[in-house]
């Protein structure tokens, strides 16, 4: 019998110290001591929020795949802590008229297969990204040409000025334009890539990849970091460890136990309710990495009764209490905040117009009155509840109760997340496999502006699930794109906020923070929304 | 020599059972043995004889110390082996003693031998448990005892598993195992009951022979008076846990003192055939021609063989007559019965019931003909649905043929009377009846169809001899009254002699002899028939008349 070993060596090395300790305690079972301890400090074993399965960072918006993208790919430009665009792979220049953008690749960039990074690679990558990303699509709508003018230079020419271009290209989430070799980037944007070569600070160890279980990255020795210190996604990506292993634990309890006992170094998302266990351990640090956190929200279907009626939507919004949702979802008030801003609290465009009842605990009486006034005929509200995603189980249950209290007839249908994402794409009537309301969460940077917030779109069938037909909203968006200067933008954004809550385009249910826990041996981790593994070091 | 007629009064006592009582364990004990006394002297064969439930097997298990734990226990008395009370011994002392000083052979050698161990090893295990002999010596002794029990090809059999041996060989292995350590006492619990009559004869002879050469005392348990006559020195008759009577064998058979013993002996069917009945000129109700049944065990990718269970069987029965099919196990007699009933499909041949050949009829076409021919099975405990009342069982057939329930019930009540059971039996369940009563019910069920032919497949074989006699009598009476033809399947020549007009002898699926009962039994023409008759135990004795069979009746033997 031969044992397959490739996939697990990384796991073992990372834990061998702990293993030695465990074994010492259990001499009755196995003799203490193991020969595996020598390269201990060089590997970080991390449990991420989900298992990595899809490896193409352009084709999906899944955060775990985006995080994977930041490990092995690099980006042209990136934002710092203050959302300011900074050079990363390339310096950039904007022409006076705002029609020509020039990116110049810095020296020493190299793909993991040893080939240098050229402007042609960047152009191909940007084009593929532009087919998938909604922000990218906006740019390409006004693009005259995008070409490599020489080996190092990318020239992007527009038909009309598009102020947010740099912001979109530098965006951190959900689909940043990762740069891959042109031959890979030429893959159709609807097909997943099958070769995983980037120019980022880590290489992907393909033979150790086990989808959904474990993925291993090794330090890319030939990566040349920028000189500046790391600042969010910008600055030098200096790698201080040899290997990073992401492993998945399907069970929150298991992950916490593993961290406490030292079998893993890092837990990206710890269940808030379980923090006391982690905090009790002197060897661990529990912290908020991303101060913005997540927005949780509900979306109604505008196509079918009862939520095709604005008054009834308003009644529903009135019935809901953010406090109840967040308290149930998160528990500890330290880690959630009531927030009525559709662009997220703590962002430049934050504004909370129209969210009073949401934040004050809901008003069931008023909701009931409004519902009656609207002539609600007891049409059942099909509310979709995912059973297998921990961060989405509470919202449907709490909202269902609130709606019932306000007089709605709620038909809560439980289903796994897969069924939900399929079903929410269905435009059929709720009784025929459609739906009326569902919930999801967004990382705040993903919804922080009208340009990228997927819900803020009134194009009917082309809009996001729920399909609101809202020309007024589209006008406001156009105004926003045209607006010059932060102040003007903020003014338009405020009107969008008012409009969205007035029409109940969607219901922001507040913001919550995720908490990471790490071994105290892990130091200098960058505090930002995307967990990245440069700069971080592991001490003895 | 009719009996062994040996005398043991001067021999030392090997085993003495004194006032032994056994009862069921628990709060509410039911007595099983009531203070019985048995004495066995060295070299003597003592037969315990009795019907089922008389306590004879319990006696033997008590001696071996093998009463089922938690179910039965000794309540009083002593069991002395050469003066030592076995009831005083603890478990390990008792274990030491078994096979060394007392050993036992059982009724069914197939189940009494471990099916997954080679028989040589099973014999050798006795030596392993009680001696410390070198391996070679052990082997030698095993081979030696195997030769003593006249096993052929000892080397091969040594390495065989029980299922590879014949019934007689298996019982020889049991005997070898029991005698290898030359015990003082051998207990044989119905050791030949499961064997065919010819094999039984050989085994009885073997036991007698070894007993003489080893001087072993034998406690022989049997229900078969024929066997008693063959082997016993002294006989104890048991009934309901009591010793009814004991005497030297000849004394007992000639002049039984107790009524029970007399009745028991009178019930033993005689080998002298019944008086011939006048020939009938009616057309046969059943004629079977060229009946052949072949079991084909071959299959795809599987080596197998054809088993010819019955070949070219031919006979006919007229109304009011009884035809017996006699043969040992595997002779094909039951196959014929089941083919005739169309419970299995014959491979070839004709089965004419009245004017119709039913051999090849499809199930649906067969149904109307079913009522003409009915069957009574061997096992009275399984032939009635335990979940149905007797009444329901009785009317099942008539209802199938369109009788109204009331009418059928009325008829059923009459039948109850006819078979000698109270009419209120109809409302009761089979488990409330004894074996003989159940067999009467099964007969009533068959008769309820007013059939022309009744097939009795070993219908009295499972019954005690006294009950057997009653059921045979009932069949006879019914035949008188109703004029039914009976096809009587049996392995027992005595039974056949008492009920059959004609006898067919089968061997290996073929008919070897077919003649009147009188001729078959007194002037057998085929060697096999002769061998069967000669092997019948106690064939010189007419038990019912307490005397030898008169010479002219045994001259051919």
């Amino acid at each position, binding site marked *: 019998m031969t044992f397959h070993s490739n996939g697990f060596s990384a796991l073992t090395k990372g834990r061998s110290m702990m293993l030695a300790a465990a074994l010492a305690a259990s001499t009755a079972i196995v003799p203490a001591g193991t020969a595996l301890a020598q390269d201990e400090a060089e590997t970080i074993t991390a449990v991420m929020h989900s*298992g990595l399965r899809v490896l193409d960072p352009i084709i999906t918006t899944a955060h775990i795949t985006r995080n994977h993208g930041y490990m092995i790919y690099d980006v042209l430009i990136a934002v710092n802590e203050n959302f300011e665009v900074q050079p990363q792979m390339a310096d950039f220049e904007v022409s006076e008229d705002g029609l020509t953008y020039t990116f110049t690749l810095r020296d020493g960039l190299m793909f993991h297969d040893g080939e240098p990074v050229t402007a042609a690679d960047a152009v191909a990558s940007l084009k593929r990204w532009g087919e998938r990303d909604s922000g990218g699509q906006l740019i390409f709508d006004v693009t005259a040409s995008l070409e490599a003018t020489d080996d190092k230079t990318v020239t992007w020419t527009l038909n009309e000025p598009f102020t947010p271009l740099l912001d979109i290209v530098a965006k951190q989430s959900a689909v940043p334009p990762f740069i891959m070799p042109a031959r890979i980037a030429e893959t159709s944007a609807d097909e997943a890539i099958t070769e995983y070569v980037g120019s980022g600070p880590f290489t992907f160890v393909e033979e150790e990849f086990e989808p959904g279980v474990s993925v291993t990255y090794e330090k890319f020795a030939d990566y040349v970091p920028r000189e500046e210190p790391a600042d969010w996604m910008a600055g030098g990506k200096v790698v201080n460890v040899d290997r990073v292993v992401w492993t998945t634990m399907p069970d929150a309890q298991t992950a916490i136990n593993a961290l406490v006992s030292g079998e893993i170094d890092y837990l990206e998302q710890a269940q808030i309710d379980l923090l006391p266990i982690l905090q009790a351990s002197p060897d661990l640090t529990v912290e908020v990495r991303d101060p913005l956190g997540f927005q949780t929200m509900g979306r109604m279907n505008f196509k079918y009764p009862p939520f095709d009626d604005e008054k009834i939507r308003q009644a529903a919004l009135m019935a809901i209490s953010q406090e109840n949702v967040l308290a149930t979802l998160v528990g500890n008030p330290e880690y959630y905040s009531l927030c009525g801003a559709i662009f997220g609290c703590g962002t430049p465009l934050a504004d909370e117009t129209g969210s009073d009842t949401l934040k004050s605990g809901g008003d069931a009486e008023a909701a009931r009155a409004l519902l009656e006034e609207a002539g609600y005929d007891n049409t059942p509200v099909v509310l979709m509840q995912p059973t297998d995603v921990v961060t989405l189980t509470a919202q449907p249950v709490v909202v269902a109760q609130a709606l019932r209290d306000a007089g709605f007839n709620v038909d809560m249908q439980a289903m796994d997340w897969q069924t939900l994402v399929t079903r929410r794409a269905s435009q059929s009537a709720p009784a025929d496999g459609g739906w009326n309301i569902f919930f999801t969460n967004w990382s705040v940077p993903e919804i922080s502006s009208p340009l990228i917030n997927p819900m803020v779109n009134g194009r009917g069938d082309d809009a996001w699930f729920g399909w609101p037909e809202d020309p007024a909203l589209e006008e406001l968006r156009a105004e926003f794109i045209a607006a010059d200067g932060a102040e003007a933008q903020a003014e338009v954004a405020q009107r969008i906020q008012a409009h969205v809550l007035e029409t109940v385009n969607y219901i922001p249910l507040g913001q919550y923070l995720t908490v990471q826990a790490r071994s105290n041996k892990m130091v200098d981790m960058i505090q930002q929304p995307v967990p990245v593994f440069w700069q971080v070091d592991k001490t003895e | 020599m009719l009996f062994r007629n040996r005398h043991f009064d001067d021999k030392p006592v090997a085993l003495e059972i004194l006032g032994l009582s056994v009862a069921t364990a628990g709060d509410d004990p039911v007595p099983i043995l009531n203070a019985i006394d048995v004495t066995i002297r060295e070299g003597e064969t003592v037969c315990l004889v009795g019907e089922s439930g008389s306590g004879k097997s319990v006696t033997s298990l008590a001696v071996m110390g093998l009463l089922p734990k938690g179910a039965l226990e000794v309540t009083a008395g002593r069991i002395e082996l050469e003066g030592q009370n076995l009831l005083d011994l603890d478990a390990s002392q008792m274990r030491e003693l078994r096979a060394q000083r007392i050993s036992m052979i059982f009724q069914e050698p197939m189940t009494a031998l471990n099916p997954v161990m080679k028989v040589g090893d099973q014999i050798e295990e006795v030596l392993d448990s009680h001696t410390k002999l070198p391996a070679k010596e052990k082997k030698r002794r095993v081979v030696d005892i195997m030769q003593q029990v006249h096993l052929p090809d000892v080397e091969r059999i040594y390495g065989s598993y029980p299922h590879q041996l014949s019934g007689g060989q298996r019982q020889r292995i049991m005997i070898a195992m029991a005698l290898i350590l030359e015990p003082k006492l051998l207990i044989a619990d119905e050791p030949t009951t499961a064997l065919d009559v010819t094999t039984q004869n050989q085994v009885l002879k073997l036991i007698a022979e070894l007993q003489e050469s080893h001087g072993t005392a034998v406690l022989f348990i049997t229900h078969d008076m024929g066997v008693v006559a063959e082997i016993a020195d002294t006989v104890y008759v048991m009934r309901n846990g009591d010793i009814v009577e004991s005497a030297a064998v000849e004394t007992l058979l000639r002049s039984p003192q107790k009524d029970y013993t007399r009745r028991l002996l009178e019930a033993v069917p005689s080998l002298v055939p019944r008086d011939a009945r006048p020939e009938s000129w009616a057309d046969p109700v059943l004629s079977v021609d060229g009946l052949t049944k072949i079991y084909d065990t071959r299959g795809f990718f599987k080596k197998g063989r054809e088993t010819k269970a019955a070949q070219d069987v031919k006979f006919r029965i007229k109304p009011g007559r009884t035809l017996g099919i006699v043969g040992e196990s595997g002779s094909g007699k039951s196959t014929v019965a089941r083919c005739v009933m169309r419970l299995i499909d014959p491979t070839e041949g004709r089965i004419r019931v009245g004017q119709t050949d039913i051999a090849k009829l499809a199930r649906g076409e067969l149904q109307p003909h079913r009522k003409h021919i009915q069957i009574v099975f061997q096992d009275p405990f399984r032939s009635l649905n335990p979940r149905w009342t007797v009444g329901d069982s009785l009317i099942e057939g008539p209802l199938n043929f369109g009788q109204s329930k009331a009418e059928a019930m009325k008829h059923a009540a009459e039948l109850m009377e006819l078979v000698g059971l109270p009419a209120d039996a109809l409302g009761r369940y089979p488990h409330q009846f004894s074996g003989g009563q159940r067999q009467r019910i099964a007969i009533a069920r068959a008769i309820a169809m007013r059939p022309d032919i009744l097939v009795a497949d070993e219908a009295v074989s499972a019954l005690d001899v006294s009950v057997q006699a009653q059921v045979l009598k009932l069949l006879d009476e019914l035949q008188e009254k109703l004029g039914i033809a009976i096809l009587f399947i049996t392995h027992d020549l005595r039974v056949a002699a008492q009920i059959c007009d004609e006898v067919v002898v089968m061997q290996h699926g073929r008919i070897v002899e077919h003649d009147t009962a009188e001729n078959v039994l007194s002037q057998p023409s085929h060697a096999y028939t002769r061998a069967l008759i000669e092997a019948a135990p106690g064939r010189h004795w007419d038990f019912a008349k307490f005397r030898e069979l008169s010479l002219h009746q045994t001259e051919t033997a």
Partner: protein
Amino acid sequence: MLGYVIRRILAVIPVMVIVAIFVFLLLRLTPGDPAAIIAGDSATPAQLERIRESLGLSEPLHVQFVTWVGNLAQGDLGTSIISSQPVTRLIGQRIWPTLQIGTLTILLSVLIAVPLGVLAAWRHRTWIDYAVMTFSVLGFSIPVFVIGYLFIKLFAIDLRWLPVQGYTSPSESVQGFLSRAILPCLTLATIYVALIARMTRASLLEVLGEDYVRTARAKGVKEHIVLFRHALRNAAVPIMTIIGTGFALLISGVVVTESVFNIPGIGRLTVDAILARDYPVIQAMILLTSAIYVFVNLLIDLSYTLFDPRIRY
């Protein structure tokens, strides 16, 4: 014997074909669209349709089935829709932990359960018997994940004797493997031990009532020889049978245990695949586990000949 093996293997074919058709239809009738999980939250319907097409999911059902079976016949189990990895590679990575832990569990269970069952049958209706029976009924009555958590809490967290979770390949470190495998094996073994001990006891009790056991006792054979040489070997066939049918239970247990102990085995692979509608993986896994089940039971049938010379194929 060889003929029998061939016939048995041929008999497996229709069963596996039915399994294949069944699984294929079941999945295609299941709501859920792998394209949606790949595309993520902000995909538009048009993008979904394009992805679906590139995955071959918009073909008619029978075409998909024929393609699948055709590839299957060539040993190609397809490619995971979600991770774009060949299914054979996924299975190759995941099957060893499951096989190792499964094998260890079976060994452990048999070693514990058979003596327990023998003891209980031998001491029938004593406190030993009742204790064994109570334990075995308990084993059936507690959900396997609860048992797993109790073990973790006790041995890994409170006593700190063993690691909480994970898996190490024995080729890398036998100690590492054992220290991590012990708790999952014990967890899995609980129900299996219960099952086998019960069957051993019942089977042995029946055998102990047989004539040949009485014969052995009448020969003065010592009690432990009666139990182990005479009774146990005769009781072996039903025990082997329960080990085979219990194998299905083991597979179910594995699915849960792998989640509790974070073992990268095929159980988790399958559950994840079902929840993500990764059709090729689900199909391959159900076919594979069914085939393993059938194969194990074939081996067990053949093993009967070792115990019982009357059984010949």
